[in-house]
Structures are given as C-alpha cells and as structure tokens.
C-alpha cells in the first residue's frame, strides 16, 4: 500500500532498511545466541543519525517525529526484534526528558543520547507492580539538596547497559496516584546497582535487568517536572512510545511474512512450488492483509500523535494491541509455512515467533489495552 510518504519519510525508511539489511540481519542470530548487547549495531544506527529521530534538533536530533521513529523501528524490527528493541527502549527512556525536562536537564542528557553515545531506559515496573503500576513501592525521600531512593525495579529493558535512567518512585505515599515522581538517575551513582540479567525466551539481544536502589542519593535537580507528576510523566511518555512498540510488532510481522513468501516459492513438493497450492496462498493472503491493516493503524496513530491530536489513548491502544496480535499470528503461520524446517534453529523463522510474543505483553498487556479501548468507547457513547 502506498502511504504517500514524504521525501524525507522515504529517505528515513530507505536508510533504516539499508542498516537493517547490511548490519542488523547478518548479526541477528549471533546476538540471539550470545545475548551480548549489540553496541556495534547501535553504533551504526547512531552514526546514521537514527537516535536523533526522537530528540529535538536543538539538542542534536534531526527529522524528529514519532512517525519517523516508527518507520525506523519497523525497518529494524523486520531484521531483528531484539536489536530493534534496544533502540526503541532508549527512545522510551529519552521521551520523559524531551517532554518534561527543563533546559539544563535537556542540555545535560539529550546530546549524548542523540549521538547514541549513551542509551536510556525507563523504569517503573516492580515485582509487585506490573499492570497495576500504581502499586510501586520504590520511594524517594527528600533530604536537603538530594533525594534518597530505596527500592527495586525489575524487567527493565536496557537495564545495566543504559547510562541514563528515568525512574518512577513514590515521594508521598499518602497522595496515592499523585504521590509519584520521575527522576533521572545516572549509572554509577553510589547506591544504584543492578540485579540479575533475565534469560529470555525472545528479544535476547536486548538486556533486561533488575535495578536496585539502596540509599541511592541523587541531586534534587534530577527531579523531572514537579513532585507528584510521576504518573503523568509516565502516561505522556507511553502515549509517545506506544506507536513505536506497535511499529516493532509490525516490523516483526512483516519480516516473518517476507521470509515465508520467499520460502514457499522455493520449496518444491508434489512436483511444484508449494506457493502454487491454494491452501498456502490463502494463508499468505490473510497474513499480508492483516499486516497491512496493522500498518494502517500504526501509521495513522503516529501521524495523530505528531499532529498534536489531544487524546490518542484509544487509537494507540488499538494500534499496539492489533499489531502485536497480528505479529503473533503471522509469525506462527510463517513458521507453519516453513514446515519442519521452521522448527529448526538453523532457519531464522522460529526467532520471529519468540520475538513477537513479548509485544503482546510489555508496555501495557493487550488485556490492559482492551480495557482502555472499551472504557474510552463507553465514555464516548455516554456523552
């Protein structure tokens, strides 16, 4: 489908595609097995200005827009969902500073993030606070010119490899949802250590770790916005990053579809390429249409975000939920089309299934997304 991309958007898509084919795809299997952080690949992305897509120009960014970020993320994910998520998660950790940072904070942190010299991470999830984010227990106590953080975050993407962390902690438990605040915490701050690195089913190139805060003292200047704004920072950040997660799922689905179409042309059974059998053709048709429908939702939502449309929570929930469900279905169908070969790690398709699954879970499970959509619908009907 022709999405009538502008020249600049086409340029970004082609450049991201080139990086994906020349640098990401050849390295995907290696990082999936070794679970090493893909610094080499991220360096190429950085040198091509891809980290600048989510940072304003005055701080080193370029062509800044959520739509452009989605285009790049989709192309990277086509080649490897794991490597793509290292990039996308840095965007997630950067958005709070872009949206709520004051000038000093932006000047201090954004240029290095734009150059990809450092990566960022966003930390809200705790063992007892996943879908119920309001249940976080990490506290930040004001002491003179500092805040002292105590608590544990887990399942943090880029945890351990990022330099710049945005951490959500409770500053006033009595205020409930209005009692949380957002802080910038730098790696190496005394009292800030890392727990174990998770051994994951998929997106194994990315690092997922616990963050441990033990009397971790940070300067008061590291508070983002104001005390009590923690959940607002979180919600607004997710509004910007959710289309990117949807784009990741979309890219994984697209990548799997391409592999499947190519394979069924080559595989000969009963004297013909299996692509000539109607059963196979119908599967491919369904897969391709679902991917295109997902793309429509992702691109439309991203455009709305960039246009400043006020409330995109329903649409971005739809995009994330649908694209990730499609990714799961399409990757599993693609594996089926590979037959027995699809089950073998020698062939690239099983990795796409493993990488797709997480997109249905993180940044708000698809169950939570459905809840958001339904509540929004009801609210709109009640007007």
């Amino acid at each position: 489908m022709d999405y009538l991309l502008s020249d600049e958007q086409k340029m970004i898509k082609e450049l991201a595609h080139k990086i994906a084919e020349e640098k990401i795809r050849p390295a995907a299997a290696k990082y999936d097995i070794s679970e090493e952080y893909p610094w080499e690949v991220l360096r190429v992305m950085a040198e091509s200005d891809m980290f600048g897509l989510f940072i304003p120009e005055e701080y080193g960014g370029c062509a800044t827009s959520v739509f452009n970020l989605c285009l790049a993320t989709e192309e990277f994910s086509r080649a490897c969902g794991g490597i793509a998520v290292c990039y996308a998660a840095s965007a997630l950790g950067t958005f709070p500073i872009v949206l709520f940072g004051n000038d000093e904070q932006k000047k201090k942190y954004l240029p290095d993030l734009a150059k990809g010299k450092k990566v960022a991470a966003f930390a809200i999830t705790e063992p007892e606070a996943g879908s119920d984010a309001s249940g976080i227990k990490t506290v930040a106590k004001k002491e003179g010119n500092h805040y002292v953080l105590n608590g544990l975050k887990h399942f943090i993407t880029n945890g351990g490899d990022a330099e710049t962390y945005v951490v959500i902690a409770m500053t006033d438990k009595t205020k409930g949802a209005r009692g949380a605040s957002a802080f910038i915490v730098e790696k190496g701050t005394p009292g800030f250590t890392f727990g174990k690195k998770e051994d994951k089913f998929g997106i194994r190139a990315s690092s997922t770790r616990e963050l441990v805060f033990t009397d971790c003292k940070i300067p008061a200047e590291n508070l983002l916005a104001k005390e009590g704004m923690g959940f607002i920072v979180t919600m607004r950040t997710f509004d910007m990053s959710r289309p990117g997660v949807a784009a990741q799922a979309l890219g994984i689905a697209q990548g799997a579809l391409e592999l499947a179409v190519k394979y069924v042309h080559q595989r000969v059974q009963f004297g013909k390429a299996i692509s000539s059998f109607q059963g196979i053709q119908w599967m491919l048709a369904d897969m391709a249409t679902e991917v295109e429908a997902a793309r429509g939702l992702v691109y439309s939502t991203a455009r709305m975000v960039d246009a400043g449309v006020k409330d995109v929570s329903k649409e971005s929930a739809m995009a994330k939920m649908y694209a990730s469900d499609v990714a799961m279905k399409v990757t599993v169908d693609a594996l089926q089309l590979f037959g027995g070969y699809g089950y073998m790690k020698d062939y690239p398709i099983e990795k796409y299934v493993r990488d797709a699954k997480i997109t249905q879970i993180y940044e708000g499970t698809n169950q939570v997304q459905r809840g958001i959509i339904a509540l929004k619908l009801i609210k709109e009907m009640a007007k």
Partner: protein
Amino acid sequence: MNIIVCIKQVPETTEVRINPETNTLMREGVKSIINPFDMYAIEEAIRLKERFGGKVTVVTMGPPQAESALREAISMGADEGYLVGDRAFAGSDTWATSYTLAGAIKKINQINVANNSLADSGKGHGIDLILCGKQASDGDTAQVGPGISTHLNIPQVTYVKKIEEVKEGMMRLERMLEEGYEIIETSLPALLTVVKEINEPRIPSLKGLMRAKSAKITALTQKELNLDPQQIGLCGSPTQVVKIFTPKPRAGGQILKGEIPDITKQLVDLIKDEVN
C-alpha cells in the same frame, strides 16, 4: 587535504544480463549503483578529510542520471560533486575517458584556485590526491585511473590497500600484489587506485542524505572544458568494443599419464600436432 575521487555509475552487477542478439548489456529495469570499488575510494577520501581537514570532491563522467551517484557520495561525506557530460563525450573508450576526466580535474583545480577555497588546508590551493576504485564492474579494464595520472603527468600507485603515512607532500602506501604486498612512497600530488581491503565504506547519515539532496552539482561540458575534439568521444577512442559475449564453456582437457619423461614426450608431440 584537497582530494578528488573519480567515480562511475554502473548497473548492479548481480542483475545484469546480455542481450544474445545485440551483444549489449540489457540495462532496462536494472538498478544503477556506484561502482563497488569506488565506494572504497570515497570512504578513504572521507577518512583522510576527517584526519587532516580539507575537502573531498567527487567527479563522474556519465549521463545525467549519474548525478544520483554523486549525491550518494555526498551523503557519505563528500563536499561537492561535478558531473562531466556532453554529447561530444559519447562513445569514449578508456583512453578518451581518462583524457576527458584529466581535463575536468585540471578545470576543477583552476576553480579551486580561483575560489581560494583551501586557505585552511595548509597545502596550497592545488589538488593533493586523486583516488579511484581499482576497476569498474562493467568494463573491468582498470585503465582509467592510470590513464588519468598519465594525462596529468603525476605519479600513480595502483591496488593500494593501506595508506600508512601521510607527510608534507608525501605518502607511504601498502600496495597489494598477488602474493604479498610492497611498500611504496610517492610524492604528492598523486593518483591512487584502491582495493576493497583498504576499508569498509560507511552507511550514509540522515543529515548527510538531506545535505546531498540539496547539494549543488556542477556540470562540466565541452564548453567549460574546451578539450581537443580529436581526443574525446568516439573520435578520440583508439579501441572499439566489437563484441560482448559469454564465452562457451571449455571442454575438459586431456590428462597425460605415465612417467615424467614419457609425459613430456607426449606433450611435445601434442603441441607439435596443434601447431601443424
């Protein structure tokens, strides 16, 4: 350093087919790319600029569509591009091409001196270095680079795999041989042709692509260059491509068996028969 890189736009080699009736390359629908060896030359030039400062100018002789090759080089980090093209240059073989490109380089040198654009290069106004890829993937002659240096009367070093040292007016290079390498020192200005062992070409940056889109490409036609009409185009081409064909696969050879004195005698007899 003031560096010129000569590049050529060629069809993407994996896709090219030969028309069996006309014996010419079938170019329709085939993507055009920068000649792969030229990518290494562009990358090396940009690396030298990053080390020593200065300017990288890319030049290509070709039809109007070759402009996209110049822009691609600019997106990697080259500073400006020149498109050498004119009806009068059509049909050039490697002799006429290298004569024309040498003329273009002389002209660019003139323009640089006039613009005083290298006041900060510390090496005067002239061109310090010309880089070319080893050979073009369509013609495969590897003649144009050496031809240019001959027309310009400057030293040439071919098959350069590493630039070891750069000093005032001099360069020390590693030149690749079939088995091993030699170290060569040359004065500057000089022309080098490079092999793929020299570096790994970078992927362009987004900012580079944007700059390349709006970069000014200067056209150099016969009017600006005022070259000798007898040495350009078909007129100036001593060689002519008569036929391009896929060679027939060779039939298997004959294996001679026996002791060495016997085999030698058999071989001599066979050669005698062939000659007769």
